[in-house]
């Protein structure tokens, strides 16, 4: 059945096991981190309500932590805590901290001081005043903070899938990469419902009168712990090798599905973001990863590509794809873009990627160095004949290609260039192109075939074995279907590849995917 025609409901039924599992993980993640955030935030809130001089500093730090973008925060966690549950929980708890500290603080300092004085006058000691009076009176405000934190956590927990911590993000980000709307919705709808339901429930508790609140407050902590338990920490570090695959790879025929059907590979697998996957392999948290054959980190982290001896990974030759209307609008553009054709081989691309990803050179600099070296660089013209908009997906190689094209266009034509980099995955980039928000972006033949065109299996099998056939097929179909033209291939093939650490590969004598299968079966 074609995925496009499958209804959302059918998808959810088919994937109900995964869906349930992800939802439980999502709830668990949300509440474990909430539990820790309360355990830390409440005492801190009380502390700064007692020592007001500290309040500026503490709230300031919590505020700054909250403005760190979630992806970056997860990134910072990895060197310290690795991947998986730990960094995800810590990151989530950091986001939940501010509303809890702030509301505890304002809740307590907002109490009528005469009431506190009365408690003192009756002979209550500090602890009694705190637990019997301040806490209880501040509770509606504190609950409002917990409510905010919960909703934030449900949202941010979708990002946990970036670092192999599971949750509904696996579907959401897998769906975005695979251009599969059903998959996106299967993750996004439960996540949204979760946020709405939890918000409504906590709103009810928050608005209770003192009598009902008292009863509820005895149940709440127990509920919190029970919900946290949904997240059974993945007992990943069992025996054998551990694989980390991107959400995209997990859902693809030429990915995890192909590994299972063609090779019969059974390996302990977690879902993880491309951004942290290589590092995790390097630090031995993962053994096998689904990388890209031209990724610079291959070089940086000393990884070895396992030979795809059964040929399940189709060719991914890169070429710019351009709206035909744009080619007509900007004469000379096609020739200019084709200047790059055949100029970048696999090893050159790996090297360029290595410079940006690992040496942290800017894509502009890497692009310019490359063009100068290849005598393709020209001083930019005035750019008075219109603006070409170049898009790119959200990873380094695409940034570099976008820069190279931008410099080529400025140097060789009278067009201005606007780059829209970081357009997420294939779906976002391709939609931007279809909707005329960009004129071109670099795409890969395999992606065009399997993620965009999605022809039936027989046709895929017929064209996928040969790189020229694949190219010819997508070229014709794109013009027919979308009025988009594939220009000449750039040269390199950035296909999927399984990779391991060089050292481990040598130690285990695993050089191909078949070797890997045998190793797994024998251990």
């Amino acid at each position, binding site marked *: 059945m074609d995925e496009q025609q499958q209804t959302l409901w059918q998808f959810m039924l088919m994937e109900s096991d995964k869906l349930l599992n992800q939802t439980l993980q999502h709830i668990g993640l949300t509440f474990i981190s909430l539990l820790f955030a309360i355990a830390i935030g409440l005492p801190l809130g009380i502390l700064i309500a007692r020592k007001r001089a500290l309040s500026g500093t503490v709230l300031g730090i919590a505020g700054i932590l909250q403005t760190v973008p979630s992806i970056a925060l997860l990134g910072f966690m990895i060197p310290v805590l690795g991947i998986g549950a730990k960094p995800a929980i810590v990151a989530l708890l950091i986001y939940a901290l501010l509303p809890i500290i702030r509301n505890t603080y304002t809740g307590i300092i907002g109490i009528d001081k005469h*009431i506190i004085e*009365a408690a003192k006058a009756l*002979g209550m000691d500090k602890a009694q005043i705190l637990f019997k009076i301040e806490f209880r009176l501040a509770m509606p405000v504190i609950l409002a903070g917990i409510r905010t934190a919960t909703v934030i956590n449900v949202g941010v927990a979708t990002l946990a899938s970036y670092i192999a911590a599971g949750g509904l993000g696996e579907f959401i980000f897998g769906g975005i990469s695979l251009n599969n709307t059903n998959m996106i919705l299967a993750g996004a709808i439960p996540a949204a419902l979760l946020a709405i339901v939890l918000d409504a429930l906590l709103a009810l508790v928050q608005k209770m009168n003192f009598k009902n609140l008292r009863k509820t407050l005895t149940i709440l902590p127990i509920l919190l712990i029970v919900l946290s338990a949904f997240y059974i920490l993945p007992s990943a570090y069992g025996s054998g090798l551990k694989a980390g695959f991107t959400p995209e790879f997990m859902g693809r025929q030429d990915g995890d599905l192909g590994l299972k059907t063609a090779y019969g590979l059974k390996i302990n697998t977690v879902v993880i973001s491309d951004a942290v996957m290589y590092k995790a392999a390097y630090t031995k948290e993962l053994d096998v990863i689904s990388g890209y054959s031209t990724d610079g980190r291959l070089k940086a982290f000393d990884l070895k590509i396992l030979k795809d001896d059964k040929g399940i990974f189709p060719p991914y030759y890169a070429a710019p794809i351009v709206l035909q209307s744009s080619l007509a609008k900007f004469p000379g553009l096609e020739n200019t873009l084709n200047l790059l054709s055949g100029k970048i081989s696999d090893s050159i691309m790996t090297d360029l990627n290595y410079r940006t990803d690992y040496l942290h050179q800017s894509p502009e600099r890497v692009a310019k160095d490359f063009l100068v070296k290849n005598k393709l660089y020209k001083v930019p013209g005035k750019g008075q004949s219109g603006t070409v908009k170049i898009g790119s997906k959200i990873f380094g190689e695409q940034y570099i290609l976008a820069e190279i094209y931008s410099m080529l266009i400025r140097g060789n034509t009278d067009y201005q260039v606007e780059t829209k980099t970081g357009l997420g995955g294939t779906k976002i980039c391709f939609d931007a192109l279809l909707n005329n928000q960009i004129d071109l972006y670099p795409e890969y033949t395999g992606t065009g075939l399997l993620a965009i065109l999605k022809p039936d299996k027989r046709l895929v099998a017929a064209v996928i074995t040969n790189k020229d056939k694949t190219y010819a097929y997508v070229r014709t179909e794109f013009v027919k279907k979308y009025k988009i033209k594939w220009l000449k291939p750039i040269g390199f093939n950035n296909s999927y590849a399984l990779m391991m650490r060089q050292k481990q590969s040598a130690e285990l004598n695993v050089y191909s995917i078949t070797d890997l299968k045998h190793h797994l079966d024998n251990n």
Partner: protein
Amino acid sequence: MIELIGVSKKYGATIAVNQVSFKVNEGENLVLLGTSGCGKTTTLKMINRLIEPDGGQVLIDGKDIKQQNPEKLRRGIGYVMQNIGLFPHYTIEENISVIPKLLNWEKDKTDRRIIELVDKLHLPKDSLKLYPNELSGGQQQRVGLARALVADPSLLLMDEPFGALDNVTRGSIRKEFKDLEELKRKTIVMVTHDVQEAFELADRICLMDKGEIMQVGTPKELLLNPLNDFSRKFLDGERLALEFKMIRISDVWANLHEASYVSENRFSPELSVWDAMEKLRSGNLSELIFEDEKGVFKKISFDILMRAFNQYKNTNQHG
């Protein structure tokens, strides 16, 4: 017994209380009187260590309170706040039983005591399960009093206990309060800025201004023998009414003539001049007959009473 010796408190440059000394005897009711901001509340709070003085000493039954655990100290002193300060999240019953809980009383004992207080303070019985915001201001004030009295402390500090009430309610609660048997054996320090209230309830009054004591004495002493201009001026506005209420027929007894006849209607000389005048006026009478415990009869009319009153004042002032 409470004794303050040279107690002072500063807030920055403001001297809230300056070198205050006084003594409150067992069972006595001392009223701190003065205009707003003169340091009454501050003085009161230094007696149960809600405020720590900058200088001086507070002794309770001869012991320096600084040496005592503040929580224990406070559990033994009833305190009625200027702002009532009931706990909004506690029922009335829970509000009253705070101290019994702190003192680990048995439930039975607490319950019995609460029922007793509800009865004495004329609180509606079904109010025990209600929350403070479901009670009227006057009822809340009674709960505040019940909360302070529950453990039957021998000392009671009260900061404008009737402050939040309208004049009519205030008068009637004050009267009930005065008649409460329970309060008669307690040593009480009470704050007010209402002169009438002070004269009605005080055994002695401590008149304060700008953190300092202007005069300490019985209501009569303050009225008849003000020590300084401040004391005199402070009472001037209500002097006549206060004097009429304060001075009794027994005080002017010597200045009255014996009655030449005896009537059925005889009054006690403990009646104040004010009350005697009330009786003359309301009964539309021209004369009243009084009889003292020795069986002596005396007669007053409005004129005779005024003359005797003036004579009494002239002989008792300045000395």
